[in-house]
């Protein structure tokens, strides 16, 4: 089937969205924007296409529910099968990447050992890799799928393992980490192809074993599912956007500004959107759109990334927290510390100064979130104000403390304005891009 792809190459993450012929979202993919944009772009697109195949599987399953009683795949079984399919697929991907990691770490070993005379890392590394492999099934087949990228997941496990395995002199902790750090860059640069079809058999087998699918129907279910996920997806057009858009391997007319893509994406998600606030990794945009999602005006932060997502990233690093932990912590504040500077460069200094003054982390964080949103409010005002409805997008829209601060400041400045936040808000730009791709093709076909 024909599909349309939008890719948003952001400073922190690269997102891809795949639409079907009717403009419905088939799949979404995300990866970290590594130093190699081409790879980031390819990985995000591949993830989105894999996700699209899961959607195709979801669409195909109800057909298996029809027919004679013994053919019935109950709705619960359908859900379970889909979930298993995704789990098996993520596990398979993870294992492929662990193999790549193993190869790269082994290749890096001599160089690392030269830096640490007397070190013999081989056996410890082999053990570390074995440990990662052994942990994988539980990580992916148990409950919730890990929400982190391979790099982050593997890094934290590796660090834990390395700490346990380290022996000063013979296998220093730094050497074990160094080997990983060198290798992971290479692993991230490697593209691999792993079709969803490859795990259909395993997923069905698992459910037969669990008694969810009658054994006699396994072959039938497997064939139907394999057929659905293997349907050819023909990318009819792609549109790229985002910070790194100029680097995308697309012709110029297939590159659109983030402003336009975010405006359109927000409109598609919430058709009554009039104002869009996007706070991304290194820029903040205030966008006004008309009832068709066409941008009528915008303001962006200038060259300084103060108060953007990256700022929160530095604060999280400084506090030894994950960036997703900041918001909830800030919400538990008892009071708000007044913060005037949201300079990213001085984020650490500001924080340490406050802590040295004896202020509570939570209270400082609450103040930081408010300061970020105050900056955004200034951009919103300059772009023409906040009109109903306001749609908040970008990574920072996932942060509950930022959302709370925005709600409060919007109410103070503009009264009650309905505010939309989509759980998929990080894909807003890519979604807008995919719709531009679709419109381009439709307009071309009509012309």
């Amino acid at each position: 089937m024909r599909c349309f792809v939008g890719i948003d190459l952001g400073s922190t993450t690269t997102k891809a969205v795949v639409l079907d012929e009717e403009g419905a979202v088939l799949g979404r993919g995300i990866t970290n924007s590594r130093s190699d944009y081409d790879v980031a772009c390819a990985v995000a697109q591949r993830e989105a296409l894999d996700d699209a195949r899961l959607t195709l599987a979801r669409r195909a399953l109800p057909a298996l529910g029809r027919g004679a009683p013994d053919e019935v795949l109950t709705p619960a079984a359908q859900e379970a099968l889909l979930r298993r399919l995704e789990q098996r697929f993520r596990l398979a991907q993870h294992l492929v990447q662990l193999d790549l990691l193993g190869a790269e770490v082994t290749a890096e070993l001599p160089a690392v050992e030269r830096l640490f005379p007397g070190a013999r890392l081989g056996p410890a590394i082999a053990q570390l890799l074995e440990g990662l492999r052994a942990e994988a099934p539980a990580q992916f087949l148990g409950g919730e799928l890990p929400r982190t990228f391979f790099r982050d997941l593997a890094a934290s496990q590796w660090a834990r393992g390395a700490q346990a395995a380290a022996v000063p002199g013979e296998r220093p902790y730094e050497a074990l980490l160094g080997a990983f750090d060198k290798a992971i860059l290479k692993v991230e640069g490697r593209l691999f192809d792993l079709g969803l079809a490859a795990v259909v058999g395993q997923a069905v087998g698992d459910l037969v074993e669990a008694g969810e699918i009658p054994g006699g129907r396994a072959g039938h279910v497997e064939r139907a599912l394999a057929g659905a996920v293997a349907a050819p997806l023909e990318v009819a057009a792609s549109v790229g956007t985002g910070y790194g858009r100029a680097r995308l391997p697309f012709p110029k007319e297939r590159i659109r500004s983030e402003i336009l893509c975010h405006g359109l994406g927000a409109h598609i998600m919430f058709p009554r959107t009039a104002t869009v606030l996007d706070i991304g990794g290194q820029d903040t945009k205030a966008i006004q759109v008309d009832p068709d999602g066409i941008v009528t005006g915008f303001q962006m932060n200038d060259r300084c990334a103060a108060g953007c997502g990256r700022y929160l990233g530095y604060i999280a690093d400084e506090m030894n927290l994950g960036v997703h932990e900041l918001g909830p912590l800030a919400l538990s504040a008892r009071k708000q510390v007044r913060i005037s500077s949201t300079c990213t460069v001085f984020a650490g200094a500001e924080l340490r100064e406050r802590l040295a003054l004896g202020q509570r982390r939570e209270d400082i964080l609450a103040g930081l979130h408010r300061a970020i949103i105050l900056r955004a409010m200034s951009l919103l005002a300059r772009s023409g104000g906040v009109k109903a409805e306001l749609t908040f997008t970008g990574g920072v829209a996932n942060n509950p403390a930022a959302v709370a601060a925005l709600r409060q400041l919007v109410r103070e400045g503009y009264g009650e304005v309905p505010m939309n936040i989509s759980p998929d808000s990080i894909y807003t730009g890519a979604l807008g891009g995919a719709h531009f791709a679709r419109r381009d093709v439709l307009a071309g076909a009509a012309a």
Partner: protein
Amino acid sequence: MTATPLPAAPAPQKDRSQERQKAMLAEHFARLAAAPETGAKVVYTFVPGNLTELLLSFDILPVLPEINALQSGMRQRSREFIREAEKRGHSEDVCTYVKCDLGMKLKGNVGPTGDRLPNPDLLLLSYTGCFTFMKWFELLREEYRAPTCMLHVPYQADGKVTPSARDYVVRQLREEVIPALERITGRAYDEDRLREHLRRSAEAEEDLVRVLRSARRRPSPIDGYFGAVYYVGPIFSSFRGTADAAAYYRELREEVDERVRLGLGPVTPDGPMGPERFRLVVEGPPNWTSFREFWRMFHAEGAVCVASTYTKVGGTYDEGFRHDPDRPLETLAEYCLGCYTNRSLPTRVDVLCRYMDEYEADGLLVNSVKSCNSFSAGQLLMLREVERRTGKPGGFIESDLVDPRYFSAANVKNRIDAYLQMIEQRRRGAGA
């Protein structure tokens, strides 16, 4: 505050007029370099409200520190000059023209042609719409220990030149400026010579206006911002009222007429511009440190600037003003009062709306520079008002005059791209 460039950077159009302008500049800087030997008197003064004809009537050589600063920006020297001034204690927030000029002085006062600039015999402070001018010359007075003469030009708060304001300026010319010039030169004021210069000014002004107005055509044969900053060079600086300037503008007019006849678009530093896709009016000075790169962000997308306010800082000739040899001091006074940044915000909005209309522009783009509050204060309000009145979209970018630290190419390009695509999308409607 504001100033005009001299084509030290690669000229956009290697026409005869361009060569002539280069030669004029070389000659001027050679005369300046020789001043200590020849005894020629030198006056430092500002671009808006400059009294070039009056200075020429005394055979005085003008030096324009704003132009030195922007030249340093284009020659990639401003970073080191600004650093030098900051080392002396000037903060990051001070106008970067001021710091660049001071830094150049501190580093030996070597001008764009490599010759040392002479010290001033007089600092002629024409105070038009820029408070910083006063502080700037206070600083230069400390450096050079030169006498200062101030011409106070009242702000055009109600949008027109009133007789009392004009008389006030004329009285200062008679009682302050002319006596000061007589003192440093030891010569008497010669009104006939002044009239002669004013007559030549009016001639050049007529040709310049014709060139700027050529941008009303489709395609526009010139870029009325990036290209036009070169065109206004002579008339805004040391050459207005000279035979050289009159010849330059005659030649330029003929060249542009020829481009019109051939239906050609503007020539850029990267060659002739491709098909015209966007017509923009631009408010605010350009960035000088990345001038070519900045221009490229427009012309590479087929965007031509059809009119700009920056090219009116040294005179709003397109509004009908001409130097009038029959009323020599009155005409100088009216000229000073009429400078673009000496005008009220409503008047500036009117000018912009008129440009949008007369030049059939697709939108107004504001380049808000950190250094210059005379320009920047109120720009966003002006933008909104122009959007409201014309129904055309506005765009807003931020940079600086000559501080390279305040020009983020990626950020500026991002906004320009988004702005142009927004115009395109709105043109096409929802199906874009």
